[in-house]
């Protein structure tokens, strides 16, 4: 410790979900300590679930987050269905995929346009953003409206949807509702493409971690860009089922955070979220998203976290295009569509065949069992593991959200980024640190919640 030691604190991190703080101790020679302090109180959802019926898991866990409730519902139902031995109808799978598209669109556009884009433009708020770039905010609002509409039609309402159940849905949307929903997306793809091209005009700060490469972890499905399906893979060759997750990924408690840190083998930080998904699944991005990626020169391996906003934009394009495809198949079922027929995959053809079933859910036979599932929340992989008794009551529950998994990687980014930024003023340095954290769109409400930054020179260690 020297008298030149500086302490950088952010007491409340703005424009992230939840409550947390940042503490960095450094001097001219090195960064000595970086702590992403999550002080939002523990929320005890895993304990709430014990003793509750298996049917309640999707709706209870959806309450963990108002931004990604669909992700919680999806991971919960898949885990419960595995525990109960249910294989849902492919039509149900596609409706779930559609619902997830709605959530990705809602979550990504809000983060990009209102919370993260201001960082690149040195603006302080969404209101300033709306004043300077009204057309961008209007596009984002229109896209968010489109995402909201999908969640409302499939999920029953926009916030905390209530229509998802183990085995399917409580109520299937009518063909007319789906046709109207499809029509409401007519302009969305164009808006998503325009928003992506605008995001590509932002100046992305350089940040190179070649000496400390990221370990990317995401689902991978050879047929589709992952939301609800796939094996868990990494950029270093890991390839496992969800049921093996806890054999590889270990949660650890750290004194400065109420959210557990999750590490590979209990040692390695890793990276989940859009950039991991993109790098591990580029080939299954939708055609327009892939074409646009080439146009804006964002292709895998893409490793600059400040460019995550570009990948979110591409994922919005993907989600809109996927939603349109799913809705096209539903609205055209029973109608000859030779052109579509020729171009669709076997899986899509199977899906179209099975949309005739009309059943909203499959009733399980209650039995004791264990189930594990991972789905891709907007911020990255979300793990649920349950054990249920022969009465259908939940015995144990384990939930590991994406922000818990990214915490250590965020701290590492800050530690590695700072030495090159020492010439910046304290205000600029603080801003850059917050921007680096927002690269991950952290949801502290999920991880338990987040951020506070004050800068002190010559402070003693705390």
């Amino acid at each position: 410790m020297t008298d030149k030691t500086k302490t950088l604190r952010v007491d409340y991190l703005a424009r992230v979900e939840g409550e947390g703080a940042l503490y960095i101790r450094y001097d001219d020679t090195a960064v000595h300590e970086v702590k992403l302090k999550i002080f939002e109180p523990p929320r005890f959802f895993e304990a709430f679930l014990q003793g509750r019926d298996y049917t309640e898991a999707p709706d209870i866990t959806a309450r963990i987050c108002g931004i990604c409730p669909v992700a919680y519902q999806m991971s919960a139902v898949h885990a419960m269905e595995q525990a109960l031995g249910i294989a849902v109808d492919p039509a149900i799978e596609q409706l779930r995929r559609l619902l997830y598209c709605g959530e990705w669109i809602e979550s990504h556009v809000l983060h990009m346009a209102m919370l993260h884009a201001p960082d690149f433009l040195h603006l302080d708020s969404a209101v300033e953003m709306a004043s300077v770039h009204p057309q961008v905010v209007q596009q984002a609002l229109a896209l968010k409206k489109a995402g909201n509409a999908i969640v409302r039609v499939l999920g029953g309402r926009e916030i905390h949807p209530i229509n998802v159940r183990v085995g399917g849905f409580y109520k299937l949307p009518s063909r007319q509702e789906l046709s109207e929903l499809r029509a409401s997306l007519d302009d969305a793809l164009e808006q998503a493409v325009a928003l992506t091209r605008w995001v590509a005009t932002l100046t992305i700060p350089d940040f190179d971690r070649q000496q400390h490469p990221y370990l990317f972890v995401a689902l991978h499905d050879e047929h589709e860009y992952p939301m609800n399906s796939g094996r868990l893979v990494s950029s270093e060759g890991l390839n496992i089922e969800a049921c093996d997750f806890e054999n590889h990924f270990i949660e650890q408690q750290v004194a400065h955070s109420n959210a557990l840190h999750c590490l590979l083998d209990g040692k390695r930080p890793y990276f989940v979220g859009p950039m991991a998904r993109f790098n591990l699944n580029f080939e299954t991005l939708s055609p327009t998203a892939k074409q646009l990626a080439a146009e804006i020169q964002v292709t895998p391996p893409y490793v600059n976290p400040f460019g995550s906003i570009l990948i979110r934009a591409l994922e919005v394009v993907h989600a809109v295009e996927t939603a349109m495809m799913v809705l096209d198949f539903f609205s055209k079922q029973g109608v000859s569509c030779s052109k579509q027929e020729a171009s669709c995959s076997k899986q899509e053809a199977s899906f179209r065949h099975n949309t005739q079933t009309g059943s909203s859910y499959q009733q399980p036979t209650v039995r004791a069992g264990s189930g594990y599932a991972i789905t891709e929340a907007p911020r990255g992989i979300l793990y649920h593991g349950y054990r249920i008794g022969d009465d259908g009551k939940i015995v144990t529950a384990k939930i590991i959200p994406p922000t818990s998994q990214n915490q250590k990687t965020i701290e590492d980014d800050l530690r590695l980024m700072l030495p090159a930024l020492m010439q910046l003023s304290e205000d600029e340095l603080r801003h850059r640190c917050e921007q680096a954290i927002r690269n991950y769109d952290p949801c502290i409400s999920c991880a338990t919640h987040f951020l506070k930054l004050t800068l002190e020179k010559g402070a003693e260690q705390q």
Partner: protein
Amino acid sequence: MSKPLIIGLGNRWRGDDGIGPLVLDALQAQNPEAVDLLENPADTLNLINAWAGRKRVYLIDACCDPQREDGSLVIIANALEDTTILHTLTRPTSSHIVDIAQAIRLSQALGQAPQQLTIYAVVTSQFEPGTRPRAVVAAAVSHVVEALRPAVTANAS
């Protein structure tokens, strides 16, 4: 699009919070043709699109004010110019939602604010899940409906 828009905010199943929808029910019973009614747009950002291009918008909501009796009516006659009261409200706990004051500011920044926005807020205090508004609060419905009568009966302009 020139019809006045009346928006009722609130959850019908969270006690007194249901006052906004209750006012809309009373207005709907009068089968008004001169106004559009919108119940609870869920995501507050939806307000921005809902009231864009409107000349007059009326927003009905519940509020908390320990200095006033439950059921009393607070009227903010021109919420677009006088957001003093709105800024005293508790801020949203999530960065991913906006409150009414933020929705107004965003609308103004986008040039999509209505020409006139009037807020009728009924003082409330009980929000028990699964319950309806208490009688003392529901009694305010007639006061709000009466206050809205000129808008409801006027020709669209």
